[in-house]
Each structure stands twice: as C-alpha cells, then as structure tokens.
C-alpha cells in the first residue's frame, strides 16, 4: 500500500493498462508531455512514447471519433476529455456511435475497448463551464457504462475495471477531490466490479445514496444526523449505468427511508430514475417520500455556488424531513 491522491491512483491505473497491452493509447488535449491540465497522465509519454501517449488537436468530436475507430480496430483507446463540460461536442460520437456500434452491427464490430476519462463537478470556483455533472445525459443511452469513483482507492480499482470491461465506459472523475482526497492505494493491480454499489456504513433509520464527490457531503450530513440520534446507512452507487438497484432495495427495505443527492440539476437528474425505481420496488416498506437533494434547475453558478450546491446542511434537513414525516 502507498499513500496516493486520486490523480496518482488514476495515473497508476493508466500505467498498468499501458504496460498490459502494447497497442493501448492515451490521448486528449494536453495529455502528452504536460500530463494533462490536472497532470493525471504525467510521465506516461516519457514511458510509453509519443505514438501511444499524445496530444490531440483541440477537437472533442475528433477525439471520440478517433477513439471509436481505434477501439473498433482492437486497441484499448483511453481518451481524455479535458473537462466534462466539453464532452458535448463529442456527444454524437458517444451517443450515436460508441453506444450503438455493437448493436447496429450485430456485433460484427464493437468499441468495447473504449474508456473515456473526464473530470466533472463543481467546488473549484469554475462557474458554468467548469463545474457540470453531465452523467444523466449519458445515462439515457443504452450501450454505455458510467462510473464515478469517490476516493483514490476506488478510482484505481474502478478505472482498471472500466479499461478491462468489454463495453464503452465513461469514467467521471470528481475534480474537486483530485488532490484533496488522499488514501491508501495498493501499488499492484486490482479491480473493483462495475455495477455494484457499496454500503459504506450500515445504519437502521434512513438510507443515504450518492456517488463521486457528493459522497463526502452525505457522510458529513450523516455525522450531524447521528448526533441528532438518527442512524444512517450510507451507500456509494459507484456505477450509474448499469446501476445496482438490488443493494439499494435491500437497504431501503430495511430503513424505510431514502435520500438521494447529486450535484446536477434535480429535474431529470439520475436521482429521478432511482426514486422512481425505489418507489415501485419498496412501496410497502417506505415510511416517507423519497427525498432528493440536488442542484437547482439552473446552470452552475459562480458567485452563488454555495447557495446552489447540495451541501451537508441541505442533506441534513432532508434527512430530518424524512424522519419526521
């Protein structure tokens, strides 16, 4: 084990993947010598050469189109989109192409070798275009997998699983935690199964569910709730597509209450899908309506970020509301 921040953990997962397959390529804006604007790919060009770790021209559409082609050829394509906010120029390549390659060709061709890494989320004073959480747009697309780690250990194991997975995967990296979150991470290879949520803490009164950077927030809220005598079960969804309804159903059946939290706007956020499913599956076990603590239905602001963001206080209030219903 070594102490690593999330960037080191991601770098380590990429390094292992590059060593594993002689044709694996890392590419994206500034990822070459510079190591990416957040330095997640530092040192990899020196190690694996300019043919396999390279800067692309500034074209997300080009990056993903190229990645689809490279993956269709059979080489692991490890594409980086500099900020999740800039994934939209590549939307067509991802939603119409990556996601449908296998289906439309009867599996004559597929891009299972594709992994897209992209930093997402707020908390860095980035305003509209450096803070978005676009997971819900992609969660509406069959054929993709979406994964979000909450800490360095999870990041390495999940990223390795994404790269090994035989489907196109988008790996959303919580950029606020890149350097802020440090933890024990094995230097050797390991994977964490995609599609499985993790019960981070057991409890009996209410279930709290989030993913990525929002995990820290629900954990803080749980501390406040415990002080008020409310026992919280905390679950990290980890994988948004496919998502682990089973673990959540089991938990809500036990606690009878659920709070879901994400940074993206509430309307049509992935929390809506979760609430709908749990409402159906756990109807007779629910003690109160499912609460969602999410971003407002506005673009991500700058000066009033604190007001906008689902913070621990807002989650705490939702917990109280649910318990006192």
């Amino acid at each position, binding site marked *: 084990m070594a102490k690593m921040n999330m960037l080191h953990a991601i770098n380590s997962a990429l390094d292992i993947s590059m060593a594993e397959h002689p044709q694996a390529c890392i590419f994206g804006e500034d990822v070459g010598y510079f190591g990416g604007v957040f330095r997640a790919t530092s040192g990899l060009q020196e190690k694996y050469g300019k043919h396999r770790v390279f*800067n692309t021209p500034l074209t997300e559409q080009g990056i993903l189109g190229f990645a689809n082609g490279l993956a269709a050829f059979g080489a692991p394509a490890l594409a980086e989109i500099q900020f999740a*906010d800039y994934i939209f*120029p590549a939307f067509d390549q991802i939603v119409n192409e990556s996601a449908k390659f296998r289906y439309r060709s009867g599996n004559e061709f597929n891009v299972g070798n594709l992994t897209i890494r992209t930093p997402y989320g707020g908390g860095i*004073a980035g305003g509209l275009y450096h803070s978005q959480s676009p997971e819900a747009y992609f969660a509406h697309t069959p054929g993709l997998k979406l994964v979000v780690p909450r800490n360095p250990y999870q990041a390495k194991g999940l990223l390795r699983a994404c790269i090994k997975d035989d489907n196109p995967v988008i790996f959303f990296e919580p950029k606020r935690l890149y350097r802020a979150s440090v933890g024990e991470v094995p230097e050797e290879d390991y994977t964490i199964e995609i599609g499985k949520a993790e019960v981070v803490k057991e409890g009996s009164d209410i279930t709290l569910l989030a993913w990525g950077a929002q995990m820290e927030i629900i954990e803080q809220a749980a501390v406040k709730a415990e002080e008020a005598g409310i026992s919280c079960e905390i679950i990290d969804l980890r994988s948004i597509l496919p998502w682990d309804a089973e673990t959540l159903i089991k938990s809500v059946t036990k606690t009878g209450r659920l709070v879901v939290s994400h940074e993206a706007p509430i309307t049509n956020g992935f929390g809506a899908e979760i609430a709908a499913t749990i409402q159906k599956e756990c109807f007779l076990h629910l003690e109160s309506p499912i609460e969602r603590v999410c971003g407002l239905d506005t673009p991500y602001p700058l000066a*009033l970020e604190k007001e906008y963001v689902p913070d621990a206080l*807002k989650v705490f209030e939702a917990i109280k509301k649910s318990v006192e219903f």
Partner: protein
Amino acid sequence: MTNPNNISLNISHALEFIDGHALNIPTLKILSEQGDILDGATKSELDKETALKIYSTMRFIRLLDERMQAAQRQGRISFYMQCLGEEAAITASAAALKQDDMIMAQYREQAALHYRGFTLEQFMNQLFSNEKDLGKGRQMPVHYGSNELHYLTISSPLGTQIPQATGYAYGQKLKHIDKESGELNSEIDNVTICYFGEGAASEGDFHAGLNMAAVHKAPVIFFARNNGYAISTPADEQFKGDGIAARGVGYGIKTIRVDGADTLAVYEATKKAREIAVTTGEPVLIESIAYRLGAHSTSDDPSGYRTKDEEAEFKNNCPVARFKAWLLKQNWLDEKEDEAIKDKIREEILAALKVAEKVQKPALEELVSDVYDTPIPALQKQYEELKEHIKQYPDAYPITAGRIK
C-alpha cells in the same frame, strides 16, 4: 460543359500530389522591429488620433493584465488570462472596425473591449463577480460581455462563437438585400469580427462556421490568433499544412496572413478586410502570427513545455514596444508624458480593484433569474425552498442570508 462539382477542371497527365505546404502564404509586415516603415510596404492610413488611442489601449491592457495576474496570485481573484504578446493584433484589428460592428471573441481579447469603451470599473466588477457585473457574477473571471458595446459575452466552450458569427453577420447583411433582385443593394453598414485561437480552429465548429460563411456569403471577418500554443500544445501538434490561412483558402474565403506583432500591418489588413466584407457581403479570413508571451492562464505554467530561450526571443519582439518606437519617431508620443500616464493608470487600477473587491456579491434572486425569461414553476418552487433553508441557517450562507426578503 456543366460543372456540378463546382471546381475548375485543370486536366493533367502527370501523377502529382500537391504538398500540404504548397500554398506558402506570405505574411504582411509594414513596421520593422525598430519601428521603421519597411521599404516597399503598403502605405498605412493610420491617423494620429487613432494611433494614440490604439497605443493607450495597449498600454492600459498591459498594466491591467500585470496587476490582475498579481491579484490572482494574492488570492484576490480566482483566475486570470493575459493578452500579453497579442495586444497589437487585438487592438489594431478592433480599431479598424466601426464602433457598432459586432465582436465575437474567444477570451483573450480584452484589449478590443477596452478600445470600445469598457471601463476599468466594468472590468473589475466582472473579475470580482460582484453585483455590478453585467454578467451577474455567473461566469469565471475574464468572461466579459457588453451589449451596448457590441461585444458578445464570452462562452468557455471553444469555437462555438465561430458559426454564430456567421449567422450574426448574415443577419447584418440581410438588411441590405434587394427584395426584387436578391442582390446587395447597398454597402453593408456593419460586419462581425470573430476571434479564435489556432487551437480552437481544430473544433468542428470552425469548419462548420467557415463553410457556412463561404457558401452563404456572410460578411464576417474571421480573425485567427495563431500564437503558437493551445495551453501546452504547440501549433505543430495542432495542425499540418500552411496554417489557418490555408484553410480559409480551402473554404474559398479571401485570406491574408499578417505579422500580429505589427500594429500597422494588422490595422491595414483588417481595414481592407472590412471593406471587402461590406462591399461584397463575403467573409474574409485574417491569420495573425504572434506569440503568447505569458502563460495560457493563471492555472498554467509554461516553463514545463517551452524553453527560456524561445520565450526570450519573443520577448525581444514586443508588439507594444514596436508600435511605441514608431509613434516616437512620428513625434506623436513623448517618453516623459508616457511614463507619467502609466503611473496614473497603475494608481487608478489599484483604486478600482479595492473598490470592486468590496462591492457585495449578487443577491440570491440572481441565482434563478435569466435561466428563462421568467422562472418556470419548478424553479420558482426550488427558489422558495432555498430561501427558507437559508433563513434557517443564515451563518452558513453569509453572502446572501442578510439580504433575503
């Protein structure tokens, strides 16, 4: 013979491929590094008043950039981007336009905005995202915009302004199309200038925007700022062939390449480009060759990807110094007076910074205004709930709590 392919057929029997660099487009240069008009150079029409306004704009932006770069390091603002090295290209091109021509910029073009009359206070209010910011504190520093000054508010996603400029310019032209003949019946009164970096020119939006402008004839001036780098990526990892200018030619657009550190060359080229656009209604492309003297932004450290020697070489080719040398030789500028004015601007900047820093942040209602023309019901409800929450925990939301009605 009919020509459905829309190309000029020039039959050859030799199996020859044209090299990507074959065009080799020349670079217009009028002023020498020492500030002398070069032999045989196009005569410049730049008058004294405009010349001094250009110079004072460049000087102001240098000082503002210097001060705000430092302010970012002191943690007083979160982010900053300098125009360093491109002051001549931006200011002289803006000066060659009419005040009410539209400007669609990328982000590094504060000099064009100041030339138009954006005040020191307006710059500061945006940089501090306070309640006086025209953008209501929603975007990161340097995302300026002003409807009054015909300067579209900056959007971070690169290249998006390029096809928009085509559409806007097409609108400007429509006013002058004769209903009967469908031809331009007069000179167009306004054009759009669209600035973008050589990096942004790789985006799909660039290709879409240029192609649309060429085919549908929009009076837009595409101003490509080729400054050598897109963050850490050098231009030779960005494109092949003869620069962005070659693409203009490829799309059938009248194109010129200029020395972007040469105020006179940029001014003359843009003046001529405007003339072409207003008389023919067609697009023009200008590629400015300059060097991004500073870091990409305050989040960047260029020492990792370019050498000290390279930077030093370009420091000696300072666009502001070159223009100043010419002004001095013209006897339009006096060294002593220049120094005095600089000191005065420095003081003004510092004072304005201190004022803007203390102006309060936008009120809570600005969080939900402008998402739609009026907030939709769901958002209205979210806002009411948020207000209640903040009233309950005022200490946790110090920026807005005290002002909630």
